């Protein structure tokens, strides 16, 4: 079994929650994985190559030697389990800290689902102005409520405990994209400070979405 990731293949999509698996691989020093960045809008997630490993045609899709693991959270837990002794320790040993990391790791799903529920109708209809106002208002309230919860969680500087963990691997891409989409720093200073600080982290610099460098973010959250 290689310990540099050279027997691993990851199919992922830039800027989406699936991007954070690439982050996890760098944290565990598995940098040599074969990285297949897919363009979702071209339907590449339904290519024969991806479907062969993931019949659901979803990303991320991951193979380690002959072992296939789909489902982003399963992949994160798999990597930390198999490679626990190398790279950053993403799950603490201390039971109390482990509990908090596992909980926050799973809690991120609340944020992702609410962001998606709010954004998908906007993307599909080509702009907020084209979405039913009442529906948008309900979804917006839900997602803002969720940002408030994470603003509170990030008081201590990281998602769960006092150092970078699996919970941060899951959380970072979502809050980074929220900040990019205009989440205001005056109302959410902890989230802003967290995102700006983590942009200096090696694994995050290496997985920075390529298309973000060339285009501005959508102004979705400016006036929350």
């Amino acid at each position, binding site marked *: 079994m290689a310990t540099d990731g050279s027997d691993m293949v990851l199919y992922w999509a830039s800027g989406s929650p699936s991007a954070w698996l690439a982050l996890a691989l760098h944290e565990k020093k598995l940098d040599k994985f074969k990285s297949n960045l897919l363009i979702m809008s071209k339907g590449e997630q339904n290519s024969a190559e991806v479907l062969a490993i993931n019949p*659901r045609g979803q990303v991320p899709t991951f193979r380690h030697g002959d072992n*296939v693991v789909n489902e982003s959270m*399963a992949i994160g*837990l798999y990597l930390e389990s198999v490679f626990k002794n190398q790279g950053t320790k993403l799950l603490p040993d201390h039971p109390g800290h482990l509990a908090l990391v*596992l909980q926050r*790791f*799973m809690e991120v799903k609340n944020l992702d689902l609410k962001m998606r529920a709010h954004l998908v109708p906007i993307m599909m209809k080509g702009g907020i102005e084209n979405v039913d106002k009442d529906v948008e208002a309900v979804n917006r309230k839900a997602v803002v409520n969720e940002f408030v919860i994470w603003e509170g969680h990030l008081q201590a500087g990281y998602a769960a405990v006092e150092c970078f963990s699996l919970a941060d691997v899951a959380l970072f891409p979502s809050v980074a994209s929220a900040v990019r989409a205009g989440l205001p720093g005056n109302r959410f200073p902890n989230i802003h400070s967290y995102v700006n600080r983590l942009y200096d982290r090696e694994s995050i610099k290496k997985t920075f979405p390529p298309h973000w460098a060339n285009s501005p973010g959508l102004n979705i959250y400016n006036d929350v």
Partner: protein
Amino acid sequence: MASDGTNIVLYWGSGSPPCWRAMISLFEKQLGGFESNLIEFSKRGHKSPEVLALNPRGQVPTFRHGDTIVNESVAICFYLENVFKNQGTKLLPEDHKELATALQRTLEVLSLAMKGRAVVYKQQGISDDELKQRKQDLSKELGVWEDYLKSEYLVGDNFSMADVMMFPQLAYFVRYGLVLDSYPKLKAYYTKVSERESVKKSWPPHWKESDGLTALNGV
């Protein structure tokens, strides 16, 4: 640190798959001595001061082990398996290939759950066509799980965390009117796992006292 669970507290609601997952895990890990607090959703028991003190989101399962709080049902399952790995049933395999499958199936149950909720908790105004589509999506998803069952359990021949997750979901669907005749392997799996000690001990109390529902008829 062997334990029978007497320093563990669980707040739960009868029939809720996330709560059931946590309870099955507790019994599988021989932690049956936990303090069991049954709440009633209809009386907003999940928003009581006791629950909110441990879980500001006001959701169940809400769980405490000594001073350690763990909310999120999947986090509870992983926490218990990690902290009590040397007692009770081994819920995550050592072999990497089996571990990969166990972890994936465990998290995949969440997709199955979401598709079920889309039918059972459909909004008032949805069209007949939309409901029909959702039922078809659920049926297709159940077909995927029917295919996954190549052995006795979801990961080979050993009961694992994947089954801890899957069984409550499947039983919940059956309670809501899903007929398993078109899914023979799921039907056999359901019958078999229903007899497991941890499942019998945690069977939703109110299911024994009342009839099931019909939202999933025809799926």
